[in-house]
């Protein structure tokens, strides 16, 4: 890739990461104002994982996610207006108000579904990959999930089946070190998840989740392998800045230290890449603000849904 192309790509990915962060900051405002009445799980701090992976996928590829799904949905091309409308409980929401913050869907964008029962949606991606193989399609399925999912039986059932059938899929484990308030070393024998997946005979990789280019590179290789040889597992090391759900910080709870958080924030991808585009930043921020403001207007002016069974 030439320098210019790389800068264009970086600009695009920087824009997408910033857009997710600003959207989730707006979600925080809407939450505070009482327009969103729901347990929002913000992905602030984890944007590079979503954006890096999605920038390696093709339009036909399908994605499933978890309760922490806003960033994945937006990065895959999900409709922002319909997402905010869904979070505000409106009829124009992507699920008509029936799904809410943890059940986003945008079929046109290939964002199939998200689900908050930990590990559950991983199996959907296996099924989509199986369907792709049965139908002979050139399409891969991608499951996003956290480190806690690795403790669920369905994760290993999924890894096993995908490996046996050499399915075209990518497992993206966003290892943010905590499941709600429980640190990984209280729950797992070691921090490196990749090593425990490797014996299941699939390609594994581990990448710095603040390095959006590295994430994309790992995902590009994964797309190639998944399309031709079988499943890939990528462990993306990342960090959640906010509380498990809600709009605040939670250092006062004491389950993780502010120092630990500050070390991650010092490597914040939006801050770092923002420096590269300082001269354009005002224009980028204005574009994002305009889109988000329009989406908020759309959501708040939309009718409330009518109850069906």
């Amino acid at each position, binding site marked *: 890739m030439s320098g210019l192309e790389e800068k264009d790509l970086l600009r695009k990915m920087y824009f997408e990461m910033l857009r997710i962060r600003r959207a989730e900051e707006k979600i925080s405002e809407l939450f505070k104002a009482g327009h969103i009445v729901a347990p929002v799980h913000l992905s602030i701090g984890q944007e590079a994982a979503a954006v890096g992976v999605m920038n390696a996928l093709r339009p036909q590829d*399908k994605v*499933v996610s978890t309760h922490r799904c806003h960033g994945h949905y937006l990065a895959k091309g999900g409709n922002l207006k319909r997402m905010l409308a869904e979070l505000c409980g409106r009829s124009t*929401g*992507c*699920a*008509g*108000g*029936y*799904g*809410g913050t943890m*059940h986003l*869907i945008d*079929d046109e964008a290939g964002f*199939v*579904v998200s*689900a908050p*029962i930990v590990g*559950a*949606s*991983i*199996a*959907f*991606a*296996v*099924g*989509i*990959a*199986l*369907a*792709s193989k*049965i*139908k002979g399609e050139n399409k891969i*399925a991608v499951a996003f999930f956290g480190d806690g999912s690795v403790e669920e*039986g*369905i994760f290993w*059932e*999924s890894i*096993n*089946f995908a490996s*046996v059938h050499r399915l075209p899929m990518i497992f993206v484990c966003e290892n943010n070190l905590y499941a709600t308030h429980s640190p990984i070393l209280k729950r797992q024998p070691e921090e490196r998840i990749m090593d425990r997946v490797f014996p299941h005979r699939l390609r594994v990789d581990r990448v710095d989740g603040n390095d959006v280019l590295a994430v994309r590179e790992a995902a590009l290789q994964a797309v190639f392998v998944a399309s031709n040889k079988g499943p890939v597992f990528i462990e993306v090391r990342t960090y959640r800045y906010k509380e498990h759900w809600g709009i605040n910080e939670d250092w006062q709870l004491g389950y993780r230290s502010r120092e630990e958080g500050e070390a991650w924030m010092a490597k914040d991808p939006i801050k770092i890449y923002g420096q590269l585009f300082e001269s354009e930043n005002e224009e980028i921020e204005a574009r994002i603000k305009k889109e988000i403001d329009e989406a908020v207007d759309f959501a708040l002016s939309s009718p409330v849904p009518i109850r*069906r*069974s």
Partner: protein
Amino acid sequence: MLALTRLTYKEAAAEGILQAMEKDSRVFLLGEGVDNITGVYGHVLPAFRKFKEQRVIDTPLSENGLTGFAVGAALDGLRPVLIHQRNDFMLLAMDQMFNQAAKLRFASGGRHKVPLTILSFVARKTGEGVQHSQSLQAVFAHFPGVKVGMPACPEDAKGMICRAIEDDDPVIILEHRSLFDQNDFVPEGYYKTPFSARVVKEGKDLTIVAVSAAVGDTLEAVKIFAERGGSAEVIDLRWIRPLDVETIIKSVSKTGHLLVVDTGWPMFGVGSEVIASVCERAMDSLIAPPQRISMADSPCPASQYLQSGFHPKVSDIIKNILGE
């Protein structure tokens, strides 16, 4: 007029699966041991002979995962049929069946469909113990978003699996292994059993609603009742959900008496729901308190010396009818 052929219950089910797969190339089977020499209980043999591994997929022992894989394939436009050799194992898949499959159409505001069929089996053989003897239809039917059927005859063993496969929601079919060798005339071509109960025998003194293997037991019992001059109307419920309350109420308003014979447990069971539905909507039709017959409210013991009295028998139904 459809041509008829004589088939056993399990042959009829196998024919239904085969014809559904011939009719729609999106249908595929998966489950533990589906392609092995016995083809589950024979259910998969015709389909496997014709469609091989491409559409009949043997799987690891991962009930919850398999259900999720089937959901994913359904979300991607296929119509999976997932087979568990016993319904007791389905408890391992509760999350995927009921948090996920049952909810996805609703939680997507109707944008998703989950055309998933789950076929499994209920048994009441001696010696099988506490984990191979359950009849879990009431547990499964508790959840909005799924349909649950229990065929009681060969014609429905075929027609209900075809109905399930064509439905856009998850449908659970529970066959009863004691019925496998029962044979009867079955239409040769493809057909679907409606989502309604079936009046098996008309009568005027008493309505008996029965499910699955209890239908045959009830028909035996009402012969004795007839010898004593009684006339019972027997309804094969067929579907636990959707529950065909109309057919039951129509009958009860004629007979004034209601007995429910179920293969499951009494607490929060099929009998409870049928009786509650009739009481809510047609209390005035009832001349006497409604009755139910179920498995004993206990796990099933293994020993042949302990099992007596656990599964309801024909004689229990006769006793109840005659008030002895």
